[in-house]
């Protein structure tokens, strides 16, 4: 797909065959592989900023990569606080840079989220 993807590895061999899907980062469609975490698709696309902090609007991306530290959270299909390093992509998924804690856009039957 691109030079950030490791298609063939000296120990791991060929990247396993997986169905290609499309996710959307803001208004950019990005190619992704079914089953991979959102963060992997974003890294492959060269996206470096996942969110901005609440107080000073500072950029953040990844730290632990295994779902423990929450550095990587973004707004996914309108839901903020989603850990992109452990959440798998789905075809058509919308991922947005999260501003601070984000806002709950969804309404469930008009009530509180």
């Amino acid at each position, binding site marked *: 797909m691109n030079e950030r993807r490791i298609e*063939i*590895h*000296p*120990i791991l061999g060929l990247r396993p065959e997986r169905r290609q899907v499309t996710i959307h980062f803001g208004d950019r469609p990005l190619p992704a592989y079914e089953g991979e975490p959102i963060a992997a698709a974003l890294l492959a696309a060269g996206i470096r900023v996942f969110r901005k902090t609440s107080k000073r609007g500072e950029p953040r991306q990844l730290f632990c990569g295994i779902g423990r530290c929450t550095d990587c959270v973004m707004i996914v299909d309108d839901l903020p606080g989603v850990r992109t390093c452990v959440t798998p992509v789905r075809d058509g998924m919308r991922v947005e840079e999260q501003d601070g804690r984000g806002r709950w856009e969804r309404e469930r039957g008009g009530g509180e989220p």
Partner: protein
Amino acid sequence: MSILEDGYFTLEEVLALPGCPSSEAMRGRRVAVVECGHELPCNPCETACKAGALTVGTPITNVPKIDAACCDGCGICMVDCPGLAIFILDLTRDDGRAELWLPYEFLPLPEMGEAVLLRDRAGSVVGEGQVTKVRQAKRFDRTAVVQVLVPEELAMTARAIALRR
């Protein structure tokens, strides 16, 4: 030892290792050079050697020792060493070159006949070599063996290759 500050042995340190054959032994046959000098709990090299040339014993933290007279230069120890610290040297040629076997775990693999740069233990480029063979086998468990001809005087200096591409 310089390896602890800089990350690599000096040539003098390697020559003093129990796993380094004497210079006479190195001229007599293709032989292993075991560049492992610290007490690590590890003995696959001893287990790999069917010729009984390598000894670790008990405790398994002993620094490996080579009995070069027994070594037949087969290279299995080189492939099995988890630290990739063993090299095979053939100094028996009479064309001014030595053949060096390296454990290689990168891609792309070099090609037979390819001219490659040679790096020393510190990673500095010290000359050029020519790849004679690249071997892979299930038994090697994804560690390839690259055989490269190097100028004889670099036999104990060159320890890695860099592809020019």
